[in-house]
């Protein structure tokens, strides 16, 4: 069973025109900036908003092609949806929330509750008789996930299922999802703004920006050749658009020397680790040296990300030791060197 959707609709000022494909058993992460239309796409797949044009097919079934006649309402699509705002049923106990899907499928109340109980245990929720109002944000997210999974759907649509979940539980939930996904025939679409979540769960990423699919591929492919600044940010790499003549790329006021000469407009990408920082202008081999100012230092677990500004806005990744050695602090002026061999240049 594979998903083949071409979604055309308007949401306020945003026009969405996106083609989404997900194979049987494949997990696809839909990533993109806020307001790109990720949730809207999910709702269109679920049948909660109607297509204006395009069509949605799951396996042999046509769900919607913009006409009223072919529209299959959500209750007949058999999808497991986790909403970004959870949407638990306020008047029902947590257990009944999770048992709701099985009950809709006509399963006996006792059995449905037993199934629900199992799913609650799997996602680590012990409150079963409370109303959703008594749940914390992360607990609600887990119940929402349990509710979608307990329905045994043909396709999973998860809108930021882990955004409110804590570090320990995230590991558990990821493994719940993975073990569930392992023997699940249908496709899954996962909305995530956190690349970590996306990489951890998805086989492939689809990047949506302003309603359009910009790029799609594995995380590595995205990092290697980010097609937009957003993708570069997401993958944590530097990306510049410039003009190349011979082996010199002109980017604004800055010039970069590259190894392989191309002529024309190019995109240059560069991993932050390939940027070295020096207190003085280095005298050795690197020809691409820029005098820049430190805008901000962000500490990751064991490394630091240094945002630089000046003729070429750069992000560098350095070890905690070097931050101390270089006495880096915001506002300090520093020299950044880039090896020409580390630059990935491709035509624009």
């Amino acid at each position: 069973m594979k998903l083949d959707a071409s979604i055309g609709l308007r949401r306020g000022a945003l026009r969405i025109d996106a083609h989404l494909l997900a194979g049987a058993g494949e997990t696809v992460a839909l990533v993109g900036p806020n307001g790109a239309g990720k949730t809207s796409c999910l709702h269109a797949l679920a049948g909660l908003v109607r297509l204006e044009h395009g069509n949605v097919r799951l396996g042999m079934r046509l769900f919607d092609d913009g006409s009223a006649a072919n529209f299959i309402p959500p209750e007949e699509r058999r999808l497991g949806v986790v909403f970004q705002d959870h949407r638990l049923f306020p008047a029902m106990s947590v257990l009944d929330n999770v048992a709701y899907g099985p009950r809709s499928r006509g399963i006996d109340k006792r059995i449905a509750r037993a199934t629900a109980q199992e799913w609650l245990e799997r996602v680590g929720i012990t409150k079963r008789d409370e109303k959703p109002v008594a749940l914390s944000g992360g607990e609600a997210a887990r119940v929402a996930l349990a509710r979608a999974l307990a329905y045994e759907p043909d396709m999973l649509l998860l809108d930021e299922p882990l955004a409110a979940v804590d570090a320990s539980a995230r590991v558990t939930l990821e493994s719940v999802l993975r073990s569930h996904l392992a023997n699940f025939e249908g496709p899954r679409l996962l909305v995530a703004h956190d690349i970590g979540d996306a990489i951890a769960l998805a086989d492939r990423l689809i990047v949506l920006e302003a309603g359009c699919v910009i790029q799609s591929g594995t995380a590595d492919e995205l990092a290697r050749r980010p097609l937009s600044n957003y993708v570069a940010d997401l993958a944590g790499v530097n990306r510049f658009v410039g003009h190349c003549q011979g082996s010199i790329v002109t980017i604004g006021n800055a010039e970069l020397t590259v190894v392989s000469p191309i002529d024309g407009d190019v995109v240059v990408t560069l991993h932050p680790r390939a940027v070295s920082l020096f207190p003085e202008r280095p005298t050795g081999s690197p020809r691409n040296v820029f005098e820049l100012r430190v805008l901000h230092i962000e500490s990751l677990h064991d490394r630091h990300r240094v945002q630089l500004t000046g003729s070429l806005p750069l992000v560098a990744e350095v070890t905690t030791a070097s931050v101390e050695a270089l006495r880096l602090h915001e506002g300090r002026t520093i020299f950044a060197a880039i090896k020409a061999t580390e630059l990935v240049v491709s035509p624009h």
Partner: protein
Amino acid sequence: MTGHPHPPPRASLIAVIVACGLIGLPLLGLALRAPWPTILDQISRPEVLSALWLSIECSLAATALSFAIGLPLAVWMASETSRWNNVVRALVLLPMVLPPVVGGLALLLAFGRNGVFGQYLDAWFGIALPFSTAGVIVAETWVALPFFVLTAESGLRASDTRAADAAATLGAKPWRILTTITLPMIAPSLQAASILAWARALGEFGATITFAGNLESTTRTMPLAVYTALETSPEAAITLSFVLIAIAAAVLFVLRKRWFPTGRTAR
């Protein structure tokens, strides 16, 4: 309820006092004139008991009918799937503005023995609503239904449809969504709607006496008994009114815990 109990603005106390004055003073006036010592005698009179019983029976039946007809109607009206619902809404509201006596007359014209529809009821099924207890129920329903419908519809309109969307994705058909998700969420509105409809039916006089007549133990409900008593003795009428008030207050008191729980419903 998350959060702290928002205190009502101080100024609202003025309204409480004004309202209690407006409503309480007249009741006090009544109470002062009521011949209290005789009230027990009055209540134990069999015709009063039968009127009381009939009132309760008919008003509950009318409330149930209003619920059964009014709820799906409100659902239909709130769902906006047809452009007819503005027409239907206006139609449903009209009994509210019609003086009850005219309402009773209209009912006679429709469901009377020679009425537009009533003649067939009579000819085909041998059912005659006028001068029967069923007629009382029809008259009370006619008067109470609009109150139920409008209140329930307002609750539905104010309700959040996001949970209903979620239920749909979990395979729930419209009917199941309605009963399991939407109705529990608008419970306060349904409660208010039922109380309004019940109270309206309980106090109904004009349409009942016109349509169903005034026959002891068949159609003479408490308001009709009060009216009848008014002809001869206002004191007796006041006493009977107090019986009616006491019944209403008792019912509200019994339902207090269930229908007006201490916390607001929260999501």
